[in-house]
């Protein structure tokens, strides 16, 4: 069963599923946004068309090796995090690399991509890209803190750093979002920044930074980034489901849960304008940090 072929098959299938789901969610978000704004909106498969169009662009330019390799870095991060995060409970799905789904390893592998892509954006020499990157990194410093606090609260409560163990815990004690609500709150507020929807879309602010880091990328590069973004979105959603909503037993349940989680940043983003960078950081170091502390206290007390 654990042959290399099976392993590779698992990897490929997981990636494809993640890609599909992520793309569909993004299309759906566009659709829903349109409906909220009382438009008809594009079809939900619009993103597939865009991706295919980008992939089928005939020409592309790059400013050097790092710019060329940046999307590949991004892809590595997304796919690695998909492979680390257990998709379904007790390994029903292919347990690819998620030996124990170690959370700290996950935290670090998840910042691998943005940094690689930041390098790529850096070599373009476009000032907008660099500005966007600095904004993105600053924002990351902002939201990582409450996010880590939430994780630490969970870990210290259940004395494990393994995602699999946390999922196993939820089999018995119900969902963690109820048993440790503050951690959930902090994590969700951090997720707003993680998904970079408005009001936290300061990285690729289209109207002031010309889409920031990706402003020099067209064609296949943009396609790679888009698809990796969708895979990454799926990974993050699955992580949240695994952490707080007791994982899922089959794909349908997984889709439902992930989509409910996905609605939060999306709906929050529809009704809010964009922050400035320091406002965003201060936002994350306001209530989310407070909830994080509450979560720590809660975990220490109980």
């Amino acid at each position, binding site marked *: 069963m654990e042959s290399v072929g099976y392993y590779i098959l698992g990897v490929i299938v997981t990636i494809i599923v993640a890609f599909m789901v992520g793309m569909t969610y993004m299309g759906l978000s566009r659709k829903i946004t349109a409906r909220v704004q009382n*438009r008809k*909106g594009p079809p939900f498969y*619009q993103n597939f068309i865009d991706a*295919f169009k980008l992939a089928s662009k005939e020409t592309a*330019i790059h400013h050097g090796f790092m710019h060329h390799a940046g999307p590949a870095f991004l892809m590595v991060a997304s796919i690695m995090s998909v492979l680390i995060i257990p998709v379904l409970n007790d390994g029903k799905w292919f347990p690819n690399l998620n030996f124990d789904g170690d959370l700290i390893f996950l935290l670090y592998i998840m910042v691998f991509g943005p940094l690689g892509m930041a390098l790529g954006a850096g070599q373009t020499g476009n000032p907008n890209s660099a500005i966007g990157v600095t904004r993105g990194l600053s924002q990351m410093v902002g939201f990582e803190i409450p996010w880590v606090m939430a994780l630490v609260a969970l870990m210290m409560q259940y004395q494990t750093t393994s995602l699999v163990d946390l999922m196993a815990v939820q089999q018995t004690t119900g969902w963690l979002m109820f048993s440790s609500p503050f951690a959930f709150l902090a994590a969700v507020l951090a997720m707003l920044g993680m998904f970079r929807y408005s009001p936290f879309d300061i990285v690729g602010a289209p109207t002031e930074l010309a*889409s920031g880091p990706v*402003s020099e*990328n*067209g064609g296949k590069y943009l396609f790679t980034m888009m698809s990796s973004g969708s895979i990454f979105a799926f990974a993050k959603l699955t992580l949240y489901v695994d952490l707080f909503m007791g994982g899922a037993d089959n794909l349908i349940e997984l889709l439902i849960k992930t989509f409910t989680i996905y609605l939060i940043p999306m709906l929050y983003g529809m009704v809010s304008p964009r922050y400035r960078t320091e406002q965003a950081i201060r936002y994350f170091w306001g209530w989310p940090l407070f909830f994080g502390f509450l979560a720590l206290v809660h975990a220490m007390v109980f």
Partner: protein
Amino acid sequence: MINDKNSQKIADFIKNWARKHSIWVLAYGTGCGAIEIPPTMTSRYDAERLGVRGAATPRQADVLLITGYLTTKTLKRVIRVYEQMQDPKYVIGFGSCTINGGMYYDSYNTIKVLDKYLPVDVYINGCMPRPEAVLAGFGKLQQLIAEGKANGAQKYKDDHEYYRGNLRKIIGNKYEMPLYNW
């Protein structure tokens, strides 16, 4: 097998279909026509349902939308932006000014006929063309794309010298455009 004609045709069909349904527009809104873009994009006429959406930079855009008159000052920048776009790329001339100068027919500092400087695929007549007209123009462009007739970029490549010559007539020799090396 892959360079077999039919399969090539099928591939082209699929590609064109995708391009047709995903048009990212770089609106060069220097002219007064730019006022018509927002209504076209937003709730009332909602161009996004046709897959039309704005692009932030020329690297990502498919369509260059010239909204109205072009002064000689902006011309070289427009051309620069066009050359920075990635193939396949299309140009839509928006409003009468891009066709024959329109109400600026005798102005000393606007260019009259856009086609002499950029390979325009679709003209949208009117001053101003209303959003319906704009949508109709996009529909025409989609149709051309589907038929594979929207090959302005190829034209631009082929008689590049012609376009450059016209440009030089306007801006003179002192201003050196970078080479367009395709």
